């Protein structure tokens, strides 16, 4: 596929709105495309996509392909693969980028294996090697203890990008670009799975991904109660959300949807307060992008103190109420 050119971003869209991760990847993709002096295109797959195509142009794309079909409303790889196979054949990109989301992490490897190429998952940084024009991808390995730079010579190169790892461009409605319909006749014989329903597990209050402050608890909290009492009190004062490391989720103290970490939510709030969290690499992968990490832990050797900006070594049962009372006094 020596003639393949340009970068194709596989965008995600719901209710006519572009996902923030798609704008982030279009920002990163724009920079790479400019280095290559090639086009940045974007494919949006879904139902009732509306003006999201224009939003993708404003976010940096030269050309947007819209595959709008009621059968594509819910992500499922039997249908999305059919769209992507056709898109790769017609658009013939050099590089394909998608988000490290539930959909991207499902689609990228299937597409890569179908094309006989390699995908690099969950990338933190993307760069072009000027000599070869090949994409070099940096990602965390060994649970975040190390990083590795990967490349591959098989074209197209495929990579998924971690949420909040790259910055979107400021949306520019004056940016020139083309939005075209990308029609795909789906072959029913290839559809071996179907979505019966999607269950939303709404968390009361502000969503953890959107919160400016997150108060998170770990194994050290010892049970579910502190999450609804002490942590909730502090989160309320800070107008923030509650998070957790993996042990409280595995022990069913809190819902899985608030797990922060490599396999949970990846967040980057202004303030991240870790209470009774040891700071495993797995967990830190989910919050290391936070502006300020604050740790309360009784173990002075806990890894969290290597990652935090401020910390108190002590029993959270004593430290946290005093901290919360003082915060309340200061912010009011």
């Amino acid at each position, binding site marked *: 596929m020596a003639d393949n050119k340009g970068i194709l971003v596989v965008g995600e869209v719901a209710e006519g709105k572009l996902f923030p991760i798609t704008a982030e990847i279009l920002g990163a993709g724009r920079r790479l495309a400019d280095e290559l002096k090639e086009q940045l295109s974007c494919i949006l797959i879904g139902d009732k996509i509306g003006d999201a195509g224009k939003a993708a142009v404003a976010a940096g794309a030269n050309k947007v392909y819209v595959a709008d079909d009621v059968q594509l409303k819910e992500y499922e*790889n*039997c249908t999305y693969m059919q769209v992507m196979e056709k898109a790769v054949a017609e658009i013939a990109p050099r590089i394909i980028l998608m988000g490290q989301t*539930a959909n991207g992490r*499902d689609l*990228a*490897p*299937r597409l*890569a*294996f*179908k094309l006989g190429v*390699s*995908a*690099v*998952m*969950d990338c933190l940084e993307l760069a072009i090697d000027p000599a070869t024009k090949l994409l070099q991808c940096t990602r965390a390995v*060994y*649970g975040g*203890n*190390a*990083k*590795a*730079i990967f*490349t*591959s010579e098989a074209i197209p190169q495929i990579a998924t990008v971690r949420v909040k790892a790259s910055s979107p461009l400021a949306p520019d409605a004056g940016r020139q670009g083309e939005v075209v319909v990308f029609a795909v006749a789906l072959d029913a014989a290839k559809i*071996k*799975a179907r979505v*019966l329903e999607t*269950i*939303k*597990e*709404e968390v009361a209050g502000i969503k953890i991904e959107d919160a400016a*402050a997150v108060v998170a608890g770990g194994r050290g909290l010892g049970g579910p109660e502190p999450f609804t009492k002490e942590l909730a009190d502090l989160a309320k004062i800070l107008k923030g959300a509650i998070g957790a490391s*993996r042990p409280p989720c*595995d022990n069913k103290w809190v819902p*899985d949807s608030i797990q922060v970490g490599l*396999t949970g939510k990846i967040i980057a709030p202004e*303030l991240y307060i870790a209470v009774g969290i040891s*700071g495993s*690499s797995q967990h830190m992968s989910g919050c290391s992008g936070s502006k*300020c990490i*604050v*740790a*309360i832990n009784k173990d002075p050797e806990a890894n969290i*103190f*290597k*990652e935090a*900006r*401020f*910390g*108190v*070594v*002590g029993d959270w049962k*004593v*430290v946290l109420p*005093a*901290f919360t009372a*003082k*915060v309340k*006094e*200061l912010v009011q």
Partner: protein
Amino acid sequence: MNMIVCCKQVLDPEAAPATFKLDAANNRMVQPPEVKPVVNPYDEQAVEAALRIKDKDKAAHKITIICLGNNLVRDVVKKPLSMGADELILLEDAAFEGGDSFSVASALAAAIKKVGPFDLIFCGRQESEWDDGQVGSGLAELLDIPSVTVAKKVEVLDGGKVKVERVVADGFQVLEVQSPALITISNELGEARYATLKGIMAASKKQPVIWKPADLGLDAGKVGAAARKAKVVKLFQPVKEGKCDIISADSPAEAGALLAQKLRENKVI
């Protein structure tokens, strides 16, 4: 149902980050003596998912474990047997070392074709060393079967249909998939069961089947590192600045209050 679970032996991911060391020259991790190998935790949960199906009718369901690697520790790789799985196949050879997801999935696909007809394949959502999360989907693509990834519940329905709950950002999808199919399992499934003493005794009597590349019809020069598609340009340990301002005071409560003050001074709150 004929079920296959793919398991990987990894170094204990719960080991303290301080024990972690790299052999940068060879782009790989050094195994510290105090860190023991274990079954990749997500793979253990994949075994659990298969066992929950087998629990319903022990005679009607069979679970075969396939494990790829070299110098596999028998007590480790036999753990799924002691949990209740029926058979263990080891793809064990020095030639399998140094592979990426493509090498691993290709060898697993060859082994599964040799095993014969199957209904369900389970994998962990990702392994804890490279955290790649590609082998499951890749294997399904190579075998040309449907896949559902990051599942938290699997239920067998009539007519070879399987109902799967797949974790997504704000909840979960419920899917119906036609077997044969591959499902990757996430930690939301819940904890894997412990091995019982009876299970450990039974497992100790079972001998694993060992297959070399040639047994799979593969050229030993074209598996493992030689079959890689992704090249590691560089492996490195990021330097951590570690400049935590530890707030101390006469009592933990005072330290807590002082912490709040400090955050205010630094305009964090």
